[in-house]
C-alpha cells in the first residue's frame, strides 16, 4: 500500500478500489442479464409454448436480482 501511495504521490484508499471493482462486476452482470433477457424474448418468439410465460418471469427475476445486487453494492460496501 505504501509503495502504491509513493508511486501515485497521494493517499490511496484500497477499499475504495475494491468497492469500485465489486460495483463494476455487478454492473457487468446487470448488462449480461439484459442481454440474456433479450435473447430469451427472441427464443420465446421462435418457439411459443405453455412454458414461455414462466421463462419470461425468470428473465425479469434475473434482471431484478442483478439490479438489486448493483444497488446493494453501492449502498452497503
Amino acid at each position, binding site marked *: 500500500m505504501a509503495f502504491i501511495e509513493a508511486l501515485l504521490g497521494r493517499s490511496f484508499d484500497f477499499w475504495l478500489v475494491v468497492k469500485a471493482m*465489486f460495483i463494476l462486476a455487478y454492473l457487468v*452482470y446487470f448488462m449480461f442479464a439484459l442481454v*440474456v433477457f433479450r*435473447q*430469451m424474448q427472441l*427464443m420465446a418468439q*421462435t*418457439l*411459443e*409454448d405453455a412454458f414461455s410465460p414462466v421463462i419470461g418471469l425468470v428473465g425479469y427475476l434475473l434482471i431484478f436480482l442483478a439490479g438489486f445486487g448493483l444497488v446493494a453494492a453501492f449502498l452497503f460496501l
Partner: protein
Amino acid sequence: MRLMEGHKKPRTSKTYEKYKGRRNNNPLSSFAVCPTGIRFATQEEEEKVILLLRQHPIINIPWVTLTFVLLFAPILLDYIPLIDFLPVNFQVMALALWYLLVLAYVLGQFLYWYFNVYIVTDERVIDIDFFGLIYRDVTVTKIDKIQDVTFTQGGLLGSVFNYGNVFIQTAGESSKIDFLKVPNPADVVEIVSDLIDEEAQEDIDGRVK
C-alpha cells in the same frame, strides 16, 4: 378431378390423426407427440406439429452435477480462507455475486437445452439451434424433399435410456438435418417415414396444397 387453382381442400394429415392418440403436452418433454399449444416462428396456419423433440434429458446430468458442486462450494470457505481478508459486507456481496453467476450458468444451460428443438410437422422438418444464447440457426426442409431417414443408437447410455441420432438426408440446399441424442429415434424415423409416404400419396392423388 383436379381442384380449381386457388381452391384449397381442408387438410387433415393422416399421420397426425394416426399419432394424436399418443399426444404428450408436457412442456418439459423431450419427445412430444402432436403437442398442442405450441407455435414456432414460421408455422403456417394449417400446419400441425407432429413431433417436438429435444435432446434426451440425460445429457443435462453433467451441468446439473456441476451446479450442485458450485452451490455447495462456498462451504469450503470455512476451511480455505480465500476471502477472510475482506470485511464482512464485502464477503456477503462476494457470495451474492457467486450465486448470481451460478444462477446465470444454470439459466443458460437450461435455455440451451429447452430451445434447441427439432420440430416435425405435416409439411416440414425444422431444426432450431441457438449457439451461446446469441446466434440462432434455423434449418427447414420440406417433407417431400427428404430422400433418406436413418438413425444410430449405441453406447451404454444410449441403449439403456433409448436415445440416439436421427439423420435426415434431403435434396435441398441444406443437405442433411441431424437430430442429435433424441429419445426414441426408431419412433422418429417411423413418423418421418409415414409423413414421406403421405406426401407421396398426396402427390399421386393430385391434392392441391
